[in-house]
Protein backbone atom coordinates (compact mmCIF):
# COMPACT_ATOMS: atom_id res chain seq x y z
CA UNK A 1 0.00 0.00 0.00
CA UNK A 2 1.55 3.27 -1.09
CA UNK A 3 0.30 5.53 1.63
CA UNK A 4 3.55 7.17 2.61
CA UNK A 5 3.64 9.78 -0.15
CA UNK A 6 4.23 13.38 0.79
CA UNK A 7 2.31 16.25 -0.72
CA UNK A 8 4.61 16.99 -3.69
CA UNK A 9 4.27 13.33 -4.77
CA UNK A 10 0.59 13.74 -5.35
CA UNK A 11 0.91 17.11 -6.93
CA UNK A 12 2.95 15.75 -9.78
CA UNK A 13 0.62 13.43 -11.69
CA UNK A 14 2.23 10.31 -13.12
CA UNK A 15 4.33 11.26 -16.10
CA UNK A 16 2.79 10.15 -19.36
CA UNK A 17 5.75 11.01 -21.56
CA UNK A 18 7.57 7.62 -21.49
CA UNK A 19 4.55 5.60 -22.66
CA UNK A 20 3.70 8.09 -25.34
CA UNK A 21 7.28 8.24 -26.53
CA UNK A 22 7.50 4.45 -26.67
CA UNK A 23 4.35 4.16 -28.77
CA UNK A 24 5.44 6.94 -31.11
CA UNK A 25 8.83 5.30 -31.65
CA UNK A 26 7.24 1.91 -32.27
CA UNK A 27 4.80 3.43 -34.76
CA UNK A 28 7.64 5.30 -36.50
CA UNK A 29 9.92 2.30 -36.99
CA UNK A 30 7.25 -0.33 -37.54
CA UNK A 31 6.91 0.23 -41.32
CA UNK A 32 10.62 -0.51 -41.72
CA UNK A 33 10.10 -4.01 -40.35
CA UNK A 34 6.83 -4.78 -42.06
CA UNK A 35 7.77 -6.72 -45.19
CA UNK A 36 4.75 -5.99 -47.37
CA UNK A 37 1.39 -4.31 -47.79
CA UNK A 38 -0.40 -7.19 -46.06
CA UNK A 39 1.35 -6.50 -42.78
CA UNK A 40 0.86 -2.77 -43.14
CA UNK A 41 -2.82 -3.48 -43.58
CA UNK A 42 -2.85 -5.50 -40.36
CA UNK A 43 -1.08 -2.64 -38.57
CA UNK A 44 -3.64 -0.16 -39.91
CA UNK A 45 -6.53 -2.32 -38.73
CA UNK A 46 -4.94 -2.54 -35.29
CA UNK A 47 -4.61 1.26 -35.15
CA UNK A 48 -8.26 1.69 -36.20
CA UNK A 49 -9.41 -0.76 -33.54
CA UNK A 50 -7.20 0.86 -30.93
CA UNK A 51 -8.69 4.30 -31.54
CA UNK A 52 -12.22 2.89 -31.43
CA UNK A 53 -11.45 0.95 -28.25
CA UNK A 54 -10.11 4.10 -26.59
CA UNK A 55 -13.26 6.07 -27.38
CA UNK A 56 -15.43 3.18 -26.22
CA UNK A 57 -13.41 2.87 -23.04
CA UNK A 58 -14.26 6.48 -22.18
CA UNK A 59 -17.87 5.37 -22.18
CA UNK A 60 -17.61 1.89 -20.63
CA UNK A 61 -14.49 1.89 -18.51
CA UNK A 62 -14.42 5.45 -17.25
CA UNK A 63 -18.08 6.47 -17.18
CA UNK A 64 -19.45 3.00 -16.50
CA UNK A 65 -22.03 3.13 -19.30
CA UNK A 66 -21.97 -0.11 -21.26
CA UNK A 67 -22.54 0.11 -24.99
CA UNK A 68 -23.12 -2.96 -27.12
CA UNK A 69 -23.86 -0.82 -30.18
CA UNK A 70 -20.66 1.16 -30.78
CA UNK A 71 -20.14 -0.39 -34.22
CA UNK A 72 -23.45 1.18 -35.25
CA UNK A 73 -21.84 4.61 -35.09
CA UNK A 74 -18.76 3.37 -36.95
CA UNK A 75 -21.16 2.15 -39.63
CA UNK A 76 -22.96 5.51 -39.71
CA UNK A 77 -19.67 7.28 -40.37
CA UNK A 78 -18.56 4.75 -42.99
CA UNK A 79 -21.84 4.70 -44.91
CA UNK A 80 -22.37 8.43 -44.42
CA UNK A 81 -19.08 9.16 -46.15
CA UNK A 82 -19.62 6.49 -48.78
CA UNK A 83 -23.11 7.67 -49.70
CA UNK A 84 -22.41 11.40 -49.58
CA UNK A 85 -19.27 11.18 -51.70
CA UNK A 86 -20.47 8.68 -54.26
CA UNK A 87 -24.17 9.49 -54.65
CA UNK A 88 -24.01 13.26 -54.20
CA UNK A 89 -20.43 13.98 -55.09
CA UNK A 90 -19.85 15.83 -51.85
CA UNK A 91 -16.25 16.59 -50.87
CA UNK A 92 -14.90 13.73 -48.70
CA UNK A 93 -13.75 16.09 -45.97
CA UNK A 94 -17.17 17.68 -45.74
CA UNK A 95 -18.81 14.25 -45.89
CA UNK A 96 -16.70 13.13 -42.94
CA UNK A 97 -17.73 16.15 -40.89
CA UNK A 98 -21.40 15.81 -41.82
CA UNK A 99 -21.39 12.10 -40.93
CA UNK A 100 -19.72 12.76 -37.60
CA UNK A 101 -22.26 15.46 -36.77
CA UNK A 102 -25.12 13.22 -37.83
CA UNK A 103 -23.83 10.43 -35.59
CA UNK A 104 -23.44 12.91 -32.74
CA UNK A 105 -26.97 14.25 -33.18
CA UNK A 106 -28.41 10.74 -33.29
CA UNK A 107 -26.46 9.84 -30.14
CA UNK A 108 -27.71 13.01 -28.46
CA UNK A 109 -31.35 12.26 -29.28
CA UNK A 110 -31.04 8.62 -28.22
CA UNK A 111 -29.11 9.49 -25.07
CA UNK A 112 -32.09 11.24 -23.54
CA UNK A 113 -34.08 8.05 -23.93
CA UNK A 114 -31.63 5.35 -22.97
CA UNK A 115 -28.97 6.75 -20.67
CA UNK A 116 -31.41 6.62 -17.77
CA UNK A 117 -31.13 2.86 -17.94
CA UNK A 118 -28.61 0.97 -15.89
CA UNK A 119 -26.68 -2.25 -16.27
CA UNK A 120 -28.41 -4.90 -18.34
CA UNK A 121 -31.17 -2.57 -19.50
CA UNK A 122 -28.59 -0.17 -20.94
CA UNK A 123 -26.80 -3.12 -22.54
CA UNK A 124 -30.08 -4.15 -24.13
CA UNK A 125 -30.89 -0.62 -25.31
CA UNK A 126 -27.49 0.05 -26.90
CA UNK A 127 -27.53 -3.39 -28.44
CA UNK A 128 -30.94 -2.61 -29.94
CA UNK A 129 -29.71 0.73 -31.27
CA UNK A 130 -26.71 -0.89 -32.97
CA UNK A 131 -28.84 -3.63 -34.48
CA UNK A 132 -31.40 -1.14 -35.79
CA UNK A 133 -28.66 0.83 -37.53
CA UNK A 134 -27.21 -2.31 -39.08
CA UNK A 135 -30.65 -3.53 -40.21
CA UNK A 136 -31.32 -0.19 -41.90
CA UNK A 137 -27.95 -0.33 -43.65
CA UNK A 138 -28.58 -3.90 -44.79
CA UNK A 139 -32.06 -3.19 -46.13
CA UNK A 140 -31.79 0.23 -47.76
CA UNK A 141 -30.25 -1.42 -50.79
CA UNK A 142 -30.80 1.56 -53.08
CA UNK A 143 -28.52 3.69 -50.94
CA UNK A 144 -26.14 1.21 -49.39
CA UNK A 145 -25.96 -1.65 -51.84
CA UNK A 146 -27.46 -3.89 -49.17
CA UNK A 147 -25.66 -6.99 -47.95
CA UNK A 148 -23.33 -6.90 -50.98
CA UNK A 149 -21.83 -3.65 -49.76
CA UNK A 150 -20.73 -0.59 -51.71
CA UNK A 151 -17.50 0.90 -52.89
CA UNK A 152 -16.13 4.12 -51.46
CA UNK A 153 -14.24 6.79 -53.38
CA UNK A 154 -10.84 8.21 -52.52
CA UNK A 155 -10.28 10.56 -49.65
CA UNK A 156 -9.05 14.06 -50.34
CA UNK A 157 -8.08 16.59 -47.74
CA UNK A 158 -6.29 19.88 -48.34
CA UNK A 159 -5.53 18.78 -51.86
CA UNK A 160 -3.82 15.59 -50.67
CA UNK A 161 -5.16 12.25 -51.72
CA UNK A 162 -3.67 9.44 -49.65
CA UNK A 163 -3.19 6.23 -51.55
CA UNK A 164 -1.58 2.93 -50.78
CA UNK A 165 -1.15 1.22 -47.42
CA UNK A 166 1.98 3.18 -46.57
CA UNK A 167 0.36 6.63 -46.71
CA UNK A 168 -2.74 5.46 -44.93
CA UNK A 169 -0.56 3.89 -42.27
CA UNK A 170 0.84 7.30 -41.35
CA UNK A 171 -2.63 8.79 -41.14
CA UNK A 172 -3.93 6.14 -38.75
CA UNK A 173 -0.69 6.04 -36.74
CA UNK A 174 -0.91 9.80 -36.20
CA UNK A 175 -4.57 9.50 -35.35
CA UNK A 176 -3.76 6.87 -32.74
CA UNK A 177 -1.12 9.03 -31.05
CA UNK A 178 -3.43 12.06 -31.07
CA UNK A 179 -6.28 10.00 -29.66
CA UNK A 180 -4.12 8.64 -26.86
CA UNK A 181 -3.06 12.17 -25.92
CA UNK A 182 -6.61 13.55 -26.05
CA UNK A 183 -8.00 10.66 -24.02
CA UNK A 184 -5.29 10.92 -21.37
CA UNK A 185 -5.83 14.67 -21.14
CA UNK A 186 -9.54 14.16 -20.71
CA UNK A 187 -9.17 11.48 -18.06
CA UNK A 188 -6.94 13.79 -16.04
CA UNK A 189 -9.23 16.81 -16.36
CA UNK A 190 -12.17 18.03 -14.26
CA UNK A 191 -14.55 16.66 -16.89
CA UNK A 192 -12.79 13.29 -16.82
CA UNK A 193 -13.00 13.13 -13.03
CA UNK A 194 -16.69 13.97 -13.23
CA UNK A 195 -17.20 11.02 -15.60
CA UNK A 196 -15.30 8.68 -13.31
CA UNK A 197 -17.09 10.03 -10.26
CA UNK A 198 -20.51 9.30 -11.71
CA UNK A 199 -19.25 5.78 -12.39
CA UNK A 200 -18.02 5.42 -8.82
CA UNK A 201 -21.14 6.84 -7.20
CA UNK A 202 -23.86 8.61 -9.10
CA UNK A 203 -25.52 10.07 -5.99
CA UNK A 204 -22.23 11.38 -4.68
CA UNK A 205 -21.40 12.91 -8.05
CA UNK A 206 -24.73 14.71 -8.10
CA UNK A 207 -24.35 15.86 -4.53
CA UNK A 208 -21.03 17.41 -5.59
CA UNK A 209 -22.77 19.44 -8.27
CA UNK A 210 -22.10 17.18 -11.25
CA UNK A 211 -24.96 17.14 -13.75
CA UNK A 212 -24.68 13.40 -14.32
CA UNK A 213 -27.29 13.19 -17.06
CA UNK A 214 -25.52 15.90 -19.04
CA UNK A 215 -22.11 14.27 -18.65
CA UNK A 216 -23.44 10.86 -19.72
CA UNK A 217 -25.02 12.43 -22.78
CA UNK A 218 -21.92 14.41 -23.69
CA UNK A 219 -19.52 11.49 -23.42
CA UNK A 220 -21.95 9.33 -25.41
CA UNK A 221 -22.11 11.98 -28.15
CA UNK A 222 -18.33 12.38 -28.08
CA UNK A 223 -17.61 8.68 -28.44
CA UNK A 224 -20.29 8.32 -31.14
CA UNK A 225 -18.95 11.14 -33.31
CA UNK A 226 -15.39 9.98 -32.82
CA UNK A 227 -16.41 6.48 -33.87
CA UNK A 228 -18.14 7.94 -36.93
CA UNK A 229 -14.99 9.85 -37.93
CA UNK A 230 -12.94 6.65 -37.69
CA UNK A 231 -15.68 4.89 -39.63
CA UNK A 232 -15.46 7.49 -42.42
CA UNK A 233 -11.70 7.28 -42.68
CA UNK A 234 -11.61 3.49 -42.62
CA UNK A 235 -14.28 3.38 -45.33
CA UNK A 236 -12.08 5.52 -47.56
CA UNK A 237 -9.06 3.39 -46.72
CA UNK A 238 -10.87 0.09 -47.34
CA UNK A 239 -12.45 1.35 -50.54
CA UNK A 240 -15.30 -1.11 -50.07
CA UNK A 241 -17.64 -1.57 -47.11
CA UNK A 242 -20.30 -4.09 -46.12
CA UNK A 243 -22.98 -3.91 -43.38
CA UNK A 244 -20.73 -6.06 -41.18
CA UNK A 245 -18.93 -2.86 -40.14
CA UNK A 246 -22.03 -1.79 -38.17
CA UNK A 247 -23.13 -5.24 -37.00
CA UNK A 248 -23.47 -6.63 -33.49
CA UNK A 249 -20.40 -8.92 -33.70
CA UNK A 250 -18.25 -5.89 -34.48
CA UNK A 251 -19.66 -4.08 -31.44
CA UNK A 252 -18.90 -7.10 -29.29
CA UNK A 253 -15.38 -7.24 -30.69
CA UNK A 254 -14.79 -3.61 -29.63
CA UNK A 255 -16.23 -4.14 -26.15
CA UNK A 256 -14.04 -7.21 -25.83
CA UNK A 257 -10.91 -5.20 -26.63
CA UNK A 258 -11.81 -2.72 -23.90
CA UNK A 259 -12.63 -5.31 -21.28
CA UNK A 260 -9.78 -7.72 -21.96
CA UNK A 261 -7.20 -4.96 -22.38
CA UNK A 262 -8.35 -3.03 -19.37
CA UNK A 263 -11.36 -1.01 -18.33
CA UNK A 264 -10.67 2.60 -17.41
CA UNK A 265 -7.23 2.41 -18.94
CA UNK A 266 -6.18 4.11 -22.17
CA UNK A 267 -3.24 1.75 -22.58
CA UNK A 268 -5.50 -1.16 -21.76
CA UNK A 269 -7.72 -0.33 -24.72
CA UNK A 270 -4.66 -0.07 -26.98
CA UNK A 271 -3.29 -3.38 -25.71
CA UNK A 272 -6.66 -5.10 -26.06
CA UNK A 273 -6.94 -3.84 -29.63
CA UNK A 274 -3.48 -5.12 -30.52
CA UNK A 275 -4.04 -8.51 -28.91
CA UNK A 276 -7.50 -9.20 -30.26
CA UNK A 277 -6.76 -7.84 -33.75
CA UNK A 278 -3.66 -10.03 -34.07
CA UNK A 279 -5.31 -13.15 -32.72
CA UNK A 280 -7.59 -13.83 -35.70
CA UNK A 281 -4.58 -13.34 -38.01
CA UNK A 282 -2.58 -15.89 -36.07
CA UNK A 283 -5.45 -18.34 -35.83
CA UNK A 284 -6.84 -17.76 -39.32
CA UNK A 285 -5.63 -21.13 -40.61
CA UNK A 286 -7.55 -23.08 -37.94
CA UNK A 287 -11.09 -22.51 -39.03
CA UNK A 288 -13.51 -22.79 -36.13
CA UNK A 289 -10.75 -23.08 -33.58
CA UNK A 290 -10.21 -19.33 -33.70
CA UNK A 291 -13.70 -18.79 -32.33
CA UNK A 292 -12.97 -21.22 -29.51
CA UNK A 293 -9.62 -19.61 -28.73
CA UNK A 294 -11.20 -16.16 -28.77
CA UNK A 295 -13.90 -17.32 -26.36
CA UNK A 296 -11.41 -19.03 -24.06
CA UNK A 297 -9.27 -15.88 -23.89
CA UNK A 298 -12.32 -13.79 -22.98
CA UNK A 299 -13.47 -16.15 -20.27
CA UNK A 300 -10.05 -16.80 -18.77
CA UNK A 301 -9.08 -13.11 -18.71
CA UNK A 302 -12.34 -12.11 -17.09
CA UNK A 303 -12.07 -14.78 -14.41
CA UNK A 304 -8.41 -14.36 -13.53
CA UNK A 305 -7.82 -10.70 -14.42
CA UNK A 306 -11.27 -9.17 -13.97
CA UNK A 307 -10.03 -5.59 -14.36
CA UNK A 308 -8.40 -6.46 -17.66
CA UNK A 309 -4.83 -7.32 -18.52
CA UNK A 310 -3.13 -3.92 -18.32
CA UNK A 311 -4.61 -2.61 -15.03
CA UNK A 312 -4.18 -6.00 -13.34
CA UNK A 313 -0.53 -6.24 -14.34
CA UNK A 314 0.10 -2.58 -13.50
CA UNK A 315 -1.40 -3.27 -10.08
CA UNK A 316 1.04 -6.12 -9.59
CA UNK A 317 4.00 -3.88 -10.31
CA UNK A 318 2.82 -1.03 -8.16
CA UNK A 319 1.99 -3.09 -5.11
CA UNK A 320 4.16 -6.21 -5.15
CA UNK A 321 3.17 -7.10 -1.58
CA UNK A 322 -0.56 -6.74 -2.27
Amino acid sequence: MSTSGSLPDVLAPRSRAPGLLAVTVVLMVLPVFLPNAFYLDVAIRIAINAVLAITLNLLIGYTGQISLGHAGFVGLGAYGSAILTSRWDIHPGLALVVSAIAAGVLAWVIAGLILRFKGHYLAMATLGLGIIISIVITNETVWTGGPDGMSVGDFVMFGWQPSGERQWYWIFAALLVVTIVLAQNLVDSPAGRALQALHGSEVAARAMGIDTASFKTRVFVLSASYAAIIGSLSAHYLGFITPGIAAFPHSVELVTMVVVGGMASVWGAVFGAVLLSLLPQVLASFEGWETIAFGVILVVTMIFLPRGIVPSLAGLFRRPEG
Partner: protein
Amino acid sequence: MLKVSHLSKSFGGVHAIEDVSFEIPRGGVYAVIGPNGAGKTTLFNLITGLYVPSAGSISLAGEEISGISSNILASRGLSRTFQNLQVCMNLSAVENVMVGAHLNLNSSLLAGMIRAPGLRQSDRACRMKAAELLTFVGCKKFVAADASAMPYGALKRLEIARALAMEPKLLLLDEPAAGLNHTETHEIEELIVRLAKSGITVVLVEHDMRLVMSISERILVLDHGKRLAEGTPDEIRINRDVIAAYLGSEVGET
Protein backbone atom coordinates in the same frame (compact mmCIF):
# COMPACT_ATOMS: atom_id res chain seq x y z
CA MET B 1 -30.47 29.33 6.95
CA LEU B 2 -32.75 26.39 6.21
CA LYS B 3 -36.47 26.40 6.84
CA VAL B 4 -38.57 23.27 6.54
CA SER B 5 -42.34 23.55 6.83
CA HIS B 6 -44.98 20.84 6.85
CA LEU B 7 -42.72 18.48 4.94
CA SER B 8 -44.12 15.06 4.07
CA LYS B 9 -42.84 12.16 2.02
CA SER B 10 -44.53 8.84 1.49
CA PHE B 11 -43.36 5.77 -0.38
CA GLY B 12 -46.26 3.76 -1.72
CA GLY B 13 -48.60 4.93 1.04
CA VAL B 14 -46.06 4.53 3.83
CA HIS B 15 -45.24 7.86 5.48
CA ALA B 16 -41.49 8.15 5.89
CA ILE B 17 -41.76 11.82 6.85
CA GLU B 18 -45.02 13.34 7.99
CA ASP B 19 -45.69 17.04 8.51
CA VAL B 20 -42.27 17.93 9.82
CA SER B 21 -41.36 21.60 10.41
CA PHE B 22 -38.21 23.15 11.84
CA GLU B 23 -35.76 25.92 11.22
CA ILE B 24 -31.98 25.72 11.23
CA PRO B 25 -30.29 28.97 12.24
CA ARG B 26 -27.12 30.14 10.50
CA GLY B 27 -23.91 28.84 12.03
CA GLY B 28 -23.28 26.15 14.61
CA VAL B 29 -24.27 22.51 14.73
CA TYR B 30 -27.87 21.34 14.38
CA ALA B 31 -28.55 17.66 15.07
CA VAL B 32 -31.33 15.37 13.92
CA ILE B 33 -31.79 12.30 16.07
CA GLY B 34 -34.32 9.53 16.46
CA PRO B 35 -34.63 5.76 16.68
CA ASN B 36 -33.86 3.58 13.66
CA GLY B 37 -36.40 4.10 10.92
CA ALA B 38 -37.41 7.50 12.27
CA GLY B 39 -36.86 9.06 8.85
CA LYS B 40 -33.60 10.91 9.43
CA THR B 41 -31.88 9.85 6.23
CA THR B 42 -35.10 10.38 4.29
CA LEU B 43 -35.16 13.92 5.63
CA PHE B 44 -31.56 14.42 4.42
CA ASN B 45 -32.41 13.00 1.03
CA LEU B 46 -35.37 15.41 0.79
CA ILE B 47 -33.29 18.42 1.75
CA THR B 48 -30.48 17.52 -0.67
CA GLY B 49 -32.84 16.93 -3.58
CA LEU B 50 -32.48 13.16 -3.94
CA TYR B 51 -36.19 12.77 -3.20
CA VAL B 52 -39.05 15.04 -4.19
CA PRO B 53 -41.33 15.89 -1.25
CA SER B 54 -44.94 14.68 -1.34
CA ALA B 55 -45.96 17.91 0.38
CA GLY B 56 -44.52 20.87 2.23
CA SER B 57 -41.68 23.22 1.50
CA ILE B 58 -37.97 23.55 2.10
CA SER B 59 -36.25 26.89 1.75
CA LEU B 60 -32.55 27.65 1.76
CA ALA B 61 -31.61 31.22 2.68
CA GLY B 62 -35.15 32.30 1.86
CA GLU B 63 -35.38 30.53 -1.51
CA GLU B 64 -37.66 27.56 -2.11
CA ILE B 65 -35.56 24.51 -2.99
CA SER B 66 -37.90 21.51 -2.73
CA GLY B 67 -37.88 19.46 -5.90
CA ILE B 68 -34.66 21.01 -7.20
CA SER B 69 -32.16 18.32 -8.18
CA SER B 70 -29.13 17.77 -6.00
CA ASN B 71 -26.53 18.95 -8.49
CA ILE B 72 -28.24 22.36 -8.67
CA LEU B 73 -28.46 22.50 -4.88
CA ALA B 74 -24.73 21.92 -4.71
CA SER B 75 -24.23 25.17 -6.61
CA ARG B 76 -26.32 26.90 -3.93
CA GLY B 77 -23.85 25.87 -1.25
CA LEU B 78 -25.43 22.66 0.00
CA SER B 79 -23.11 19.73 0.55
CA ARG B 80 -23.38 16.38 2.28
CA THR B 81 -21.86 13.06 3.27
CA PHE B 82 -23.61 9.70 3.17
CA GLN B 83 -24.60 7.16 5.77
CA ASN B 84 -23.63 4.29 3.46
CA LEU B 85 -20.31 5.46 2.09
CA GLN B 86 -20.50 6.90 -1.40
CA VAL B 87 -16.79 7.21 -2.09
CA CYS B 88 -15.71 6.75 -5.72
CA MET B 89 -13.54 3.67 -5.40
CA ASN B 90 -12.30 4.05 -8.97
CA LEU B 91 -10.48 7.28 -8.06
CA SER B 92 -7.62 8.14 -5.73
CA ALA B 93 -8.21 9.90 -2.41
CA VAL B 94 -7.09 13.25 -3.79
CA GLU B 95 -9.20 12.86 -6.93
CA ASN B 96 -12.24 12.13 -4.79
CA VAL B 97 -11.75 15.40 -2.99
CA MET B 98 -11.13 17.20 -6.28
CA VAL B 99 -14.52 15.97 -7.46
CA GLY B 100 -15.94 18.07 -4.65
CA ALA B 101 -14.47 21.16 -6.31
CA HIS B 102 -16.18 20.31 -9.59
CA LEU B 103 -18.27 23.47 -9.74
CA ASN B 104 -15.21 25.73 -9.48
CA LEU B 105 -13.44 24.19 -12.45
CA ASN B 106 -13.89 24.26 -16.20
CA SER B 107 -15.65 20.95 -16.81
CA SER B 108 -16.03 21.07 -20.57
CA LEU B 109 -15.05 17.79 -22.24
CA LEU B 110 -13.37 19.62 -25.09
CA ALA B 111 -11.33 21.85 -22.78
CA GLY B 112 -10.24 18.71 -20.94
CA MET B 113 -9.22 16.91 -24.11
CA ILE B 114 -7.10 19.71 -25.51
CA ARG B 115 -5.92 20.76 -22.06
CA ALA B 116 -7.13 24.31 -22.50
CA PRO B 117 -4.93 27.16 -21.28
CA GLY B 118 -5.44 27.84 -17.60
CA LEU B 119 -6.84 24.39 -16.98
CA ARG B 120 -3.51 22.95 -15.97
CA GLN B 121 -2.94 25.68 -13.39
CA SER B 122 -6.43 25.58 -11.93
CA ASP B 123 -6.31 21.78 -11.78
CA ARG B 124 -2.96 21.87 -10.05
CA ALA B 125 -4.22 24.41 -7.51
CA CYS B 126 -7.25 22.23 -6.95
CA ARG B 127 -5.07 19.18 -6.37
CA MET B 128 -3.03 21.14 -3.86
CA LYS B 129 -6.14 22.28 -2.04
CA ALA B 130 -7.51 18.74 -2.02
CA ALA B 131 -4.32 17.48 -0.40
CA GLU B 132 -4.63 20.22 2.21
CA LEU B 133 -8.23 19.30 2.91
CA LEU B 134 -7.27 15.66 3.36
CA THR B 135 -4.67 16.78 5.85
CA PHE B 136 -7.24 19.02 7.54
CA VAL B 137 -9.65 16.10 8.14
CA GLY B 138 -6.81 13.96 9.43
CA CYS B 139 -6.10 11.84 6.36
CA LYS B 140 -2.59 13.10 5.70
CA LYS B 141 -1.11 9.65 5.36
CA PHE B 142 -3.67 8.70 2.72
CA VAL B 143 -2.97 11.67 0.48
CA ALA B 144 -1.30 9.48 -2.16
CA ALA B 145 -3.56 6.47 -1.65
CA ASP B 146 -6.24 5.01 -3.88
CA ALA B 147 -9.64 5.26 -2.24
CA SER B 148 -10.03 1.49 -2.55
CA ALA B 149 -6.97 1.01 -0.33
CA MET B 150 -8.28 3.11 2.57
CA PRO B 151 -9.84 1.82 5.80
CA TYR B 152 -13.43 2.61 6.73
CA GLY B 153 -12.67 5.35 9.22
CA ALA B 154 -10.48 7.21 6.74
CA LEU B 155 -13.15 6.94 4.05
CA LYS B 156 -15.63 8.66 6.36
CA ARG B 157 -13.23 11.58 6.67
CA LEU B 158 -12.53 11.49 2.95
CA GLU B 159 -16.23 12.11 2.37
CA ILE B 160 -16.10 15.11 4.68
CA ALA B 161 -13.05 16.47 2.85
CA ARG B 162 -14.87 16.03 -0.47
CA ALA B 163 -17.93 17.82 0.86
CA LEU B 164 -15.71 20.66 2.09
CA ALA B 165 -13.96 21.05 -1.27
CA MET B 166 -17.23 22.52 -2.49
CA GLU B 167 -16.88 25.33 0.07
CA PRO B 168 -20.43 24.76 1.30
CA LYS B 169 -22.53 27.10 3.38
CA LEU B 170 -24.61 24.24 4.70
CA LEU B 171 -23.05 20.84 5.34
CA LEU B 172 -25.15 17.77 6.09
CA LEU B 173 -23.32 14.91 7.79
CA ASP B 174 -25.18 11.59 7.82
CA GLU B 175 -23.89 9.52 10.75
CA PRO B 176 -20.25 10.60 10.55
CA ALA B 177 -19.32 8.56 13.63
CA ALA B 178 -21.14 5.33 12.74
CA GLY B 179 -18.80 2.37 12.81
CA LEU B 180 -15.93 4.34 14.29
CA ASN B 181 -14.12 3.43 17.50
CA HIS B 182 -13.90 5.67 20.54
CA THR B 183 -10.73 7.55 19.51
CA GLU B 184 -11.93 8.06 15.95
CA THR B 185 -15.28 9.33 17.17
CA HIS B 186 -13.49 11.82 19.36
CA GLU B 187 -11.45 13.04 16.39
CA ILE B 188 -14.56 13.44 14.25
CA GLU B 189 -16.17 15.41 17.07
CA GLU B 190 -13.24 17.83 17.13
CA LEU B 191 -13.39 18.10 13.36
CA ILE B 192 -17.09 19.00 13.39
CA VAL B 193 -16.50 21.64 16.02
CA ARG B 194 -13.72 23.12 13.89
CA LEU B 195 -16.02 23.17 10.86
CA ALA B 196 -18.75 24.95 12.73
CA LYS B 197 -16.25 27.51 14.00
CA SER B 198 -15.09 28.19 10.46
CA GLY B 199 -18.58 29.50 9.70
CA ILE B 200 -20.20 26.48 8.05
CA THR B 201 -23.64 25.53 9.29
CA VAL B 202 -23.45 21.82 10.10
CA VAL B 203 -26.49 19.54 10.18
CA LEU B 204 -25.82 16.23 11.81
CA VAL B 205 -27.64 12.93 11.87
CA GLU B 206 -26.04 10.78 14.53
CA HIS B 207 -26.74 7.90 16.88
CA ASP B 208 -23.94 8.64 19.30
CA MET B 209 -25.88 10.59 21.97
CA ARG B 210 -22.81 11.76 23.83
CA LEU B 211 -21.45 13.27 20.62
CA VAL B 212 -24.75 14.93 19.71
CA MET B 213 -25.36 16.33 23.18
CA SER B 214 -21.88 17.76 23.49
CA ILE B 215 -21.58 19.63 20.22
CA SER B 216 -25.09 20.56 19.03
CA GLU B 217 -26.71 23.93 19.56
CA ARG B 218 -30.17 22.58 18.80
CA ILE B 219 -31.61 19.12 18.29
CA LEU B 220 -34.60 17.85 16.30
CA VAL B 221 -36.01 14.52 17.41
CA LEU B 222 -37.90 12.42 14.87
CA ASP B 223 -39.94 9.34 15.60
CA HIS B 224 -41.85 7.36 12.98
CA GLY B 225 -41.39 10.20 10.52
CA LYS B 226 -42.94 12.80 12.83
CA ARG B 227 -41.42 15.63 14.78
CA LEU B 228 -41.29 14.53 18.39
CA ALA B 229 -39.40 17.42 19.91
CA GLU B 230 -37.04 20.27 19.11
CA GLY B 231 -34.82 22.30 21.34
CA THR B 232 -31.47 22.70 23.02
CA PRO B 233 -29.66 19.58 24.28
CA ASP B 234 -30.75 20.37 27.84
CA GLU B 235 -34.40 20.62 26.81
CA ILE B 236 -34.22 17.39 24.82
CA ARG B 237 -32.51 15.49 27.64
CA ILE B 238 -35.47 15.97 29.97
CA ASN B 239 -38.23 15.70 27.35
CA ARG B 240 -40.63 12.93 28.40
CA ASP B 241 -41.70 12.01 24.85
CA VAL B 242 -38.10 11.61 23.76
CA ILE B 243 -37.24 9.42 26.72
CA ALA B 244 -40.31 7.29 26.12
CA ALA B 245 -39.56 6.92 22.40
CA TYR B 246 -35.98 5.87 23.03
CA LEU B 247 -36.82 3.47 25.81
CA GLY B 248 -39.67 2.05 23.77
CA SER B 249 -37.55 1.56 20.70
CA GLU B 250 -34.75 -0.03 22.65
CA VAL B 251 -37.12 -2.50 24.24
CA GLY B 252 -38.54 -3.22 20.82
CA GLU B 253 -35.17 -3.68 19.20
CA THR B 254 -33.33 -5.88 21.65
